[in-house]
C-alpha cells in the first residue's frame, strides 16, 4: 500500500492505542499495589 495522505493517517487509532496502554499500565501498577498489601509469602 502506498504512502498515506496526511488526512488519511490513523490518528484516532493512535490515541486509542495509547489510551489502551495507559489503562494497562495503571491496572498493572494497581495490581502490584494490591499484592503488596497481602500477607507475606516466600
Amino acid at each position, binding site marked *: 500500500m502506498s504512502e498515506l495522505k496526511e488526512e*488519511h*493517517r*490513523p490518528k*484516532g487509532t493512535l490515541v486509542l492505542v495509547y489510551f*489502551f496502554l495507559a*489503562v*494497562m499500565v495503571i491496572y498493572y501498577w494497581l495490581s*502490584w499495589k*494490591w*499484592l503488596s498489601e497481602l500477607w507475606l509469602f516466600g
Partner: protein
Amino acid sequence: MAAEFRKCPTTGLMVHLPAQALIKINAVTSIVFLLIGGILALTLIFTRWQAVHLLPPDLFYRFLTLHGIAMLFAWIVYFEVAVLYFTSAVLLNSRLAAPWAGWLGYVLMTVGALMTTVAILAGNSDVMFTSYVPLKASPLYYLGIVLFAVGAIIACVLFFATLAVAKHEKTYEGSVPLVTYGAAAAAIIAIGTLAHGAIFYIPTGLWAAGVIPMMDPEAYRLLFWGFGHSTQQINVAAMIACWYALATLTVGAQPVSEKFSRTAFVLYALFINVASEHHLLWDPGISSAHKMWNTSYVLHLAVLASMMHAFSVPACVEVALRKKGYTKGLFEWLKKAPWGNPSFSTLIFSVAGFGFLGGITGIMYGTEQLNILGHNSLRVPGHFHATVVIGTSMAFMGLTYYVLPLIFQREVMFPTAAKLQPYFYGVGMWTVSIAMMFVGSFGVPRRHWDITLADAPFQYSFGPTVDLGMAITALGAVLALIGGAMFCIIAVATVLAGKKVNQ
C-alpha cells in the same frame, strides 16, 4: 471439474461446491451447540445468583461441565473448521483438496462431541472442563474428546493440503490473502495443540477405564493446560483473521501494511502456544524460572503480537473510513461508521472487549506473583468470557452475517433484529464479564454452587456488594441470552427459509 464450482456473483470468486457443503454443515452444527451452551449458561447464572438459586448442586456442576464442552470445544471449533475451509478453498478460488477427508473429520468430531455430551448427561462425569485427576469421568468422556480432536486435526491438515493444491494449480497469484495467512497461523497452533490433547487424554481415559495407574496430578495439570489454554490461542488467531475479514467486508479496509500484520501472526505461530502455566502459577512442582518463561509467552512476544493487531485492526478501519471522506478531527470516522451493519458493530464490540477486558486482565492474572490475587476466583471466568465470548464468539457471529449470503446464498432474515442483535449480545457480555471480574476481586470463587456457604460448618459473608454484583451478572447474562437467541433464530431461519440470493 468445472461443474463442481459456482461463480459467486458478489465477489467473483469460484466457490467449490463440496467445500461449500462442508462449510454449511460445520457452521450449522456450531450454531446448534451455541444454542445448547447458551441455554445451559442461563441455568448456571440463575443458580449463581443466589436470590434465585435455580439448580440443585449436582445439576449445577454437571451443566457447568457441559457448558464448557459445548461452547469451548463444539461451538468454537466447528466454526473454526468452517473458517478454515472458507479461507483456503473459497478465498483462493481453489478446490478443497479432499472433501472426503472433510467429511471424515466432521463425522469424527460429531461422534466425539456426542459421546462426551452423553457421558456428562449420564451423570458420571461431573469433572468440569478441566477434569483434573483424581476426579474421574466415564472413559467415554475422554474418548469423545480424543475423537473430536482427531477430527479437528484432519480439518487442519485438509486446510494445508488445500493451500498446497491451490499453489500447485495456480488458482491465485502472489501471496495468500492476509485472512488466509491468519487462518494458517491458527491451523499451525491447532495441530500442535489438538495433537497434544489427543495424546494426553488417552492415558487419562485408560486410567478411568481401570487399565493403567493414574498419572501424577501435577503432570496432568501441566499437560491439560498445554491443551486447554493453547486451544484458546487457536481462537485468538482465528478471531483476528476474522477481524481483518470483517474490516474488509464492512468498510472495505485494507491492511495498513501487510508486513506488519503478518509478522504479528508469525509471532503467534511461534510463541503463543508456549503458555500453559497461567493456571499453575501458585502450584507446587514447577520452578519459578520455568513459570516465568512459560507464562510470559517467551519474553511477552505473543503479547507484542496482540498489541500490534490492536493497532493495525482499528487503523485499517480508520484509514478506510477516512478515505471515504470522514477526515474531520480524530474520531469523525468512528461517528460516521456503519453502526447499523451488525458485522461492523460486532467487530467493534469484539476488538474493544478482547483488548480492554480480556487482554489487560490476562496480562495481570498471567503474571506469576499477581496470580495469587485472582486464581480460581470469578475473575478468571470474567477474563475468558471477554476473550472467548466477546472476542472470538462475537467475531464469528459477525462473520456469519456474511457467510449467510455468500455461502448459504440466502438474504439475512429479520434485518432490523440483526441490526440490534450485536447490541444486546455485546452490552450483555460486557456486563457479564466486568461484573464477574468485579465480584471475583472480592474473592468469590468460580465453579461454586453456594457462596452463602449455607451448608458449611463455618460462616462467612461476601457482603451486599457481591450480591449486587451477582445480580448484575445475571442481568447481563439475560441481555446476552436475548442477543444469542436472536442470533441463533436469525441464522437458522435464514438457512431454512431465507430468500435466495440472485436466483
